Structure formats: C-alpha cells, structure tokens
C-alpha cells in the first residue's frame, strides 16, 4: 500500500471515512445483538429438543407472525430507496422514510396485538406457561426492541430530513440494522413460532 | 466391615437439615483403603483387560507418595489403561517441556548481548518452513498419541455400554445424588427396579468383584459429580436427565465415592464408601438387605419410590 496515496485519500474524504466508521460500528453492534439473540434462541431450541417445550392447548397460529414478517420485509426496500435519492434533493427521501416507518409500525403493532391476544385471551402466561411461554414472550419482545431501535434511527433520520438535513447515510445505517432484524425474525419464526 | 444395612435407609429425600444430620450420623465404616481386604497394598500393572495382574509391591510411606506424581491407587479392571495412556502422554509432554525450556535457556545464555545475525524480514523462507514442519511433527506425535489412545479407550470402555448390557452378571445401580449424600438403589434379587425388594442405601455402595457395574445417575437438586477416584470414573449428576457409565472392580476392598462438582456449602462432605465384595458375599448381602427391605416396605411412602425403569443404552 502506498502511504502517500492513502494519506491523500484520507484527507480528501474525512467525513466519508467518519461515516463508514459509524456504519461499520453499527454493523458490529447489530451483529453482537444478533449473537445475543442467537444464544437465547439456542436455549429455546434446546428446550424444544429436550421435550420441555409444552405447547398451550390452543397453539398460536402462524398467520399473525407471517403478516408481521411481511410488514418487516417491506421496510428494507423503502429504506434502500430513501438512501438512494439524489444528493441535490434530500427531501425526496421523506416519503420513503415515512413509508418505512409506517411499515415498521405495522410490524410492531401486529406483534403487539398478537402477544396481547395470546396473553389475555389464550391464557398463555409467564411463568406458568413454562419454557414455551417464556421463550415466546421473551424472544418476541427482544426482537421487537431490536426493530424498535432501528425504527427510532429511521425516525430521527426522517425528522432531520424534514428539517432540511441529508439523512441518506442514516438510512444506509438503518438498512444494515434492518438486515439483522430480518435475520433474527427468521430465527424467531423457526425456533419458536413454527409449530 | 460392619456398617450400614441397606433396608434401613428408606428416608424421605427432603431438603431439611434433619435429613442431613441423619446421613451424617449414619455409622459409616471408616477403614483406610490400604487396610481393607487384608491382602495388603495392591498395585495394578497396566493390563489390557480382566483379569488383572495383582502384583503386590511394598508400600512406600504415605507422606512420600505425595511427591511422586502418582494417581490415586487403582482398583479398576480398565483403569490401568487410562493410567498408562496418561503416563505415556506425560512422558511426551515432559520431553516437550524439557526441550522448550532447554531451548529457551540456551538461547538466552548463548545469545545474551551477542551480535545479532539478522535477516531483513524475520527469518528465511526455509526457517519458517522448519517452524511449521516442527510444529506439525510435534502435533502429530504428541496429540496423535493422545487422540488414538483416548479414542481406543472411549470406544472399548468409556462409551461402550455394550459390555455391561451383554454381560448377564452385570450389576445395575440407580444412583440419586442429593445435597449432600449419595442414595443408591439396587433392583434386589428379582432384578427389577420399583419392586418392594429394591435395596436402598445411603453413602454406601456395594459391588461384587470382577463384574461390570452399570450406573445410571440422576440428581434431586443441584448438579453433582459422581466420582470413584480408584476406578477412574467421573460423571455429572444433573437434575432432569439420566446419565450412565460403567466400571468393573479388579479387587476387593473399600474405596471412596467423592463429589467433584461444587454443590453447596457441604460439598466437601459428600463422601460415600464403595465396598467391593466377593461375588458370594455380595449375593449374601443383597439377599439379606432385600429381605429387610421387603419387610419394611411402605407402599404409601411415595418419596421412597424414586427409581425408574432401567434405560437401555
């Protein structure tokens, strides 16, 4: 590597470098969060394998998480679109960011409504429901928190765009986070929701 | 070799201090292993299978033995295989350590303040190849020996439950670990668990000599570790699962059962005795203990009926 060249490139694009540093740190943090989730899902899978996984009398349907998953999947393309608007017209990103927020809220709402129904109307309680109930609520909530954090970042980006800022970098960072939430949701679906 | 009679100990396995005191006050026989059996000290020479060679060697003083780096006295038919493997790998490892130390000391002594002979890039291609080659050779030699020996032992003994499963003389033993005692259940003369003639003992295992003993192990409360130092046996007792292992005694005598997983305040007192009897003595004891157990059988004492159907491997 030619030191002079790298020096020149580093000085030419200091803000870009800072942004990719932030992006990289975000990826690492989301990765660690995913590792945390994977460890917990491993425990859930273990209980399942050991037969300590007693499904409630009325097993939860797969339909609500499928709907929620569709909402979640919708967030990504919208964020991608928002991160690619033209630099001269950053406000063009607003509808896309808004759409991502709506879709994400749809995911959180669906999940919340489903857990609410399971708890109050299907009598799946913690800790009486055993390992299944604990994993069901615990992992769903944890995954929702992860999604919530990503959506919070999108909200901040949207507000700053609305005030005239350029939030394409923020959208790109949120996009990386979104990928990890999709991975954790898939894992959640396989380990817990799938009967 | 008096002591605990099997049938007496049908005690509710609760966690109250009363039970603890009971198990502590149980008159346990306390013979020193070397004095038991009357045959004097016995050292096993490494042999591949039963029957063992009972080479009687003069005993060195107990105090001196502490400094010899020797494992606990063995009494298992297959233990000498582990001992031999361990000894062999220790010889390799001691050699490795000696070479490493000698090399280091020699380098420091020889090149202290010397004029350095320098290659610009830290070694030549050839010297790096030597390092890699040497590392691979050491790895293949030392780790390979260990792996092959270990694998053979695991295949023949440790994970080979076929031996006790196929031997008609096998003694089956259900073991329930408590804070802080070992509760053992024998099937009795009918050979079936969960019948009135089941013999239950506390901290007192009895097995016949020269016969496979098949242990299935659970825990009532926390994780315990069932170890028979003289038999090179170790297995975790974990609540909620049945673990199993087996061993075979090579000689008569009294040995110790120890807990090796930290299981609470009195972990260090979780000591039991294992008495190896002749086959005739064992049969006599089992018969007598079974008779007492049948007499004192109480069908309503649910806590006493903790045994399970024997699980095939």
């Amino acid at each position, binding site marked *: 590597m030619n030191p002079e060249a790298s020096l020149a490139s580093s000085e030419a694009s200091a803000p870009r*470098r800072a942004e*990719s*540093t932030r992006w990289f*740190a975000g990826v*690492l943090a989301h990765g*660690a969060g995913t*590792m945390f989730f994977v*460890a*917990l899902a491993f425990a859930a899978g273990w209980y399942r394998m050991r037969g*300590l996984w007693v499904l409630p009398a009325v097993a939860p349907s797969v339909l609500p998480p499928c709907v929620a998953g569709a909402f979640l999947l919708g967030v990504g393309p919208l964020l991608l679109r928002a991160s690619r608007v033209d630099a001269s017209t950053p406000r063009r990103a607003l509808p896309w960011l808004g759409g991502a927020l709506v879709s994400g809220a749809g995911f959180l709402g669906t999940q919340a409504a489903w857990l609410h129904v399971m708890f109050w109307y299907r009598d799946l309680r*913690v*800790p009486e429901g055993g390992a299944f109930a604990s994993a069901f609520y615990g992992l769903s909530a944890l995954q929702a928190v992860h999604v919530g954090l990503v959506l919070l970042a999108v909200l901040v980006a949207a507000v700053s765009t609305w005030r005239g800022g350029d939030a394409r970098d923020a959208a790109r960072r949120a996009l990386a986070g979104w990928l990890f939430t999709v991975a954790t949701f898939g894992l959640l679906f396989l380990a817990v929701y799938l009967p | 070799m008096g002591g605990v009679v099997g049938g007496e100990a049908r005690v509710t*396995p609760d966690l109250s201090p009363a039970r603890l005191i009971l198990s502590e006050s149980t008159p346990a026989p306390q013979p020193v292993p070397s004095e038991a059996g009357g045959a004097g000290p016995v050292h096993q020479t490494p042999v591949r299978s039963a029957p063992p060679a009972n080479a009687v060697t003069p005993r060195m003083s*107990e105090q001196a*033995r*502490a*400094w010899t780096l*020797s*494992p606990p006295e063995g009494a298992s038919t297959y233990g000498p295989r582990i*001992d031999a493997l361990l000894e062999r790998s220790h010889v390799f*490892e001691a050699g490795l*350590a000696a070479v490493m130390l000698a090399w*280091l000391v020699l*380098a*420091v002594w020889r090149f*202290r*303040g*010397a*004029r*350095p002979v320098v290659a*610009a890039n*830290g070694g030549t291609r050839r010297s*790096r190849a030597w*390092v890699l080659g040497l590392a691979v050779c*050491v790895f293949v030699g*030392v*780790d390979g020996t*260990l*792996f092959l020996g*270990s694998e053979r*032992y695991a295949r023949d003994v440790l994970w080979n439950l076929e031996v006790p499963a196929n031997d008609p003389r096998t003694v089956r033993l259900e073991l329930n670990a408590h804070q802080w005692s070992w509760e053992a259940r024998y099937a009795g003369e009918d050979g079936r668990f969960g019948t009135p003639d089941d013999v239950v003992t506390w901290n007192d295992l009895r097995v016949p000599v020269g016969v496979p003993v098949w242990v299935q192990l659970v825990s009532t*409360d*926390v*994780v315990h570790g069932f*170890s028979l*130092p003289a038999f090179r*046996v170790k297995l975790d007792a*974990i*609540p909620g*699962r049945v*673990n*199993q292992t087996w061993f075979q005694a090579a000689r008569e005598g009294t040995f110790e059962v120890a*807990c*090796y997983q930290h*299981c*609470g*305040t009195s*972990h*260090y007192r979780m000591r039991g005795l294992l008495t190896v009897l002749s086959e005739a003595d064992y049969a006599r004891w089992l018969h007598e203990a079974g008779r007492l157990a049948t007499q004192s059988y109480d069908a309503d004492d649910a806590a006493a009926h*903790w045994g399970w159907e024997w699980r095939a491997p």
Partner: protein
Amino acid sequence: MRASWVRALWTTDHKQVARQYLWGGLGFLLLGGLLALLIRWQWAWPGQPVPGLAWALPESRGALTPPTYTVLFTLHGLVMIFFAVTPLLFGALGHFVLPLAIGARGFAFPRLSAAGFWAYAVGGALVLASFAVRLGPASAGWTSYPPLATPAFTPGVGQTLMTVAILCVGVSAFSYGLNFVVTVVRCRAPGMTWGRMPLVVWGLFYGAVLNVLFVPVLAAATLLLLLDRVAGTQFFIAGAAAVGGGGDPIVYQHLFWLFGHPEVYILILPAWGMVGDFVAYFSRKPAHGYRLTAGAMGAVTAMSGLVYAHHLFTSGLSPVLGRAFMVLTLLISLPAEVMFLNWLMTLWRGSVRLTSPMLAALATMVVFGLGGITGLALGAVATDVPLHGTMWVVGHFHLTMGAASFLAVFAGLYFWFPKMYGRALHEGLAKAHVLASAVLFVGVFGGQLAAGYAGQLRRLYDPYQYTYLKHLLPLNQWTTGCAFLLGAAQLLFVGNLVWTLWRGRAAEPNPWSVGTLEWTCATSPPAPDNYATEPVVLRGPHVLSQPDVQQQLGRDWIGQAEAAVLGGTE
C-alpha cells in the same frame, strides 16, 4: 465549565481511561490475591483460625467456615477474571497502547470507552457491596452453575448482585471490544498497513473480536439466570425433583462455556502479542515469522468458539459431540505451537537483553508453555476423566490464564510505564519482582498439578475428609508456603510503584530503543491528542539491527515513521 472532579472522572482521553482501569484492576488484583491466600491457608491448615482475620469472622475467631470458604473461591475466580486480569490487559494496557501503536489520535468512540469504564466501576461497586448484604456474597462458584445458582439453593442477595455485576462488566467488555475493533479497522495512521502493526495490536484486536462475538452469549446466559433469580422463571431451576418444574440446567453450561472458553483466549491473546513483540525488541531482531505468528493467533481466534465442550466431557455428552470436540481441542494446540516456535526462533541468534519487560515476557513463555502442555491431557476424553474437576485442572488454567496473563500484564506495565507516567521504574526491583513471581508461580501451580494428579478435587473445604487424599497435606502446605511467598513478592512491585510515582526519575524518551510510534513520535506521557502531527508509517514494528540503518544512523533501530533511511526496509 464543569467541576474539575467531573472532568477527572469522566474523561474521554484514552490514556486517562487506561489509568482509571489500571488502578481499578490493581485494586481488584489485590483483593483476588488475598482471597486466594485465604483459600490456600484453608488447604494447608484446615479450619485453623487465620491470623488477623478475627475482626472479619468473629463467630469462628478467624477460622474459615464452609460457607465463607465457598464465597472465597467463588469471588476469587470472578474477581480475578472479570475485574482484575481482563481490565488490566484490555482496560489498562489495551486502552493505553492501542491508539498510540497504530498512530491514531484516540479511539473511534472516546465516549464509549469512558462509559465502558464506568460500567466496569458500577460492576466492581456491586461486588464490593455484596460483602455487606445478608447471607453474604455469591457462593455458587465462578461458573454460577444452576440450579445451585438459583434462589432455591443460593437465596442470598449477594448472588443476585454478582449476576448483575457480571452483566455490567459484560457491557464494559463489549464496549471496549467494539471500540478496539472499529479503531483498528478504521483509524490506523496512513501507511500503518495490517502487516506493520505491532503484534500486541493483533492480540488486542483478536481479543476484542472475541469480546464482541461472545460476551453477548455470556450476557444471554446471565440474563436467563437473573430472570430465574428475580422474576420466577424456570429456565434452569427445573428438572430438579426437589423443586419441580421443567427447565434444563445443561443449557446454561453450554452457553456459559461457549463464552467461557473464548474468554480464556481473550485473557491470553494480548499476552501472546506482547510476548511476540518484546522477544523481538529485546533480541534486537525482527520477529521470526511475523505473518505466521499473526496468522496463528487468528487461527486460535477463529477456532476458540469451537472447542468449548471439552469442559463438558463428563456431563454425559453424546459420543459424537465428545469426539468432535476432542479433535477440535487437540487441533487448537497446533497454532499455539507454531507461535511458540516462532518466539524461540526470534531469540535464536539475536542479541538478547534481559530487561524487566523481556524477563517478564520470557517468564510468560515458560509458564504459558507449561500450562499449555499440562492442558493436552484435558483435551482428550479418556485422560480428562481422571483429571476432570481436580487440582490438575486448577494448576493448568492458572498457569495459562493466571500466571501467564499476570506476567504479561507486568511485562506490559514495565514496558509502557515510562510512557504512561513519564517516570522510570527501578529496573532492579522490577526484575526481582518478575523473577520471584515466575519461580513462585511455577511452585504454586506445580504443587497444585501434583495434588490434582494424585486426585485432589477442586473446591473442597477440607480435602482430608477423604482418606485417599490425607497424604497430600504436606504437599499442600508446601504449595501454600509458595503462595504466601508469591503474595509477599508483590511488595517488590508495590514498593517500586509507590516510590517511582513519588520521586522516581524522569524517563528517557525511548528507554528500550525501539521504533514503534508511541516511543518515537509522542512525548512521555503523550499529549492529549497523542501526536503533534499524524505520523506516516513507513515500515514494520521490528526493524532492528538492519545493516543499512546502522550505517546511516549509527543505531540499531529506526522509528516506524522515521524518514531518515530510504530503501527497502519493511
């Protein structure tokens, strides 16, 4: 604006954070060491009153009781691993050296490193607070295996506080792990290619990667345990007939060791890096096989999560898993051998200078070598059985992650102290400290290995309850003697430290005559932003005794960013 004490405590200067970690780590090292001496006392004179301890244990007149003893070994392990050695290696040395060594002005996220220290401080405060609560501190062993660690069997608040404290150090370890990785990847000075980083940076980097990957796993296990303790869930309690329910304690063991085994590499990787560097510096010679060494460290890092189940060989592991983990465990010794041979080859035909950091590095090599060799038998299923859970294991891992990490901490401290505080420690006292510690470490842990081979089990309040262990009393008394001498030898360091900080002489700008950035481009101690001008790196860290350099400069070293010599030095 802000009060000066706030500025002193909440500092985002990585060198200040490093000093905070240094004092915290040394304090907990002292605490953990004293606990260890009490354990050793108990094994030499079981149940005898400890002289001078009657004030703390009035009921037994200073004698250790079984409950006290369980607290001692639990806290010794937890304090040493989470609050002493890791914070010293990563928190103190790592925070200080890493940005300097790669020519950065600081960490990528300075506030994150400050927050990490305070998470550690909160955890430490919880540990200390747990001594004052009802039923005393944690007592379920450093591994906190459930169901023992659940409130059904360990009801004390102390155990809960310790669980929270572990989560706190987890936050701290994660934050510096993230910071280190990002800083090494993104913030290297121009020209500081991957192949020009000092080996210690490689070690810290790999250790940080492991922190980012596996601390979340520890957090998961600990969180579930905490829920069992405070929220009434039954992840691990159950299956135990005495308490009913339906969890499985084995899950915890898997999760714990999936973190726990990488953790031992977290504790040793920076040590390996330092040994690699110091052996080269003080043989006045480039490190032999730099790429091989860095690659071997990487291989160990990559494999570290794949060997953990050798801790569970006696847990009733299925033969398939047992075999797989046996192979993987034995395999991980190969890169360690490559690395070790590279160190030896670096010494060979060099010009060895026995300075205090060099002595400590050589001592680290010896104890690590002995520890690694004694671990081989634990990696194979059959030979693990007689040694599992005995003092052999204790001796083995204390040699590697206790003695080796400890000596490496002091190698680093003796090396960088002049840079950290601008004052030179007394060389003679430092050498005496290193030599005495190394010899006594081998004595203490050698004695434990011998006792373990004879069958002495770990964590026994009174091992001599067992007839087959009675004869080990004299051996244990000898070992305890070594341990007390080892404790006393640390006074050499304390004296040296206090005297030097009080009136030590000012350090020379480059006392070790090495070319790395922190010694050649920064003042001692460095300015708040490290470098007056950003260094442009031209060569690797070990360009020593090169003939063309000697010809032109009249010395056997050249700075990594020194533009004096043109031509092909790498």
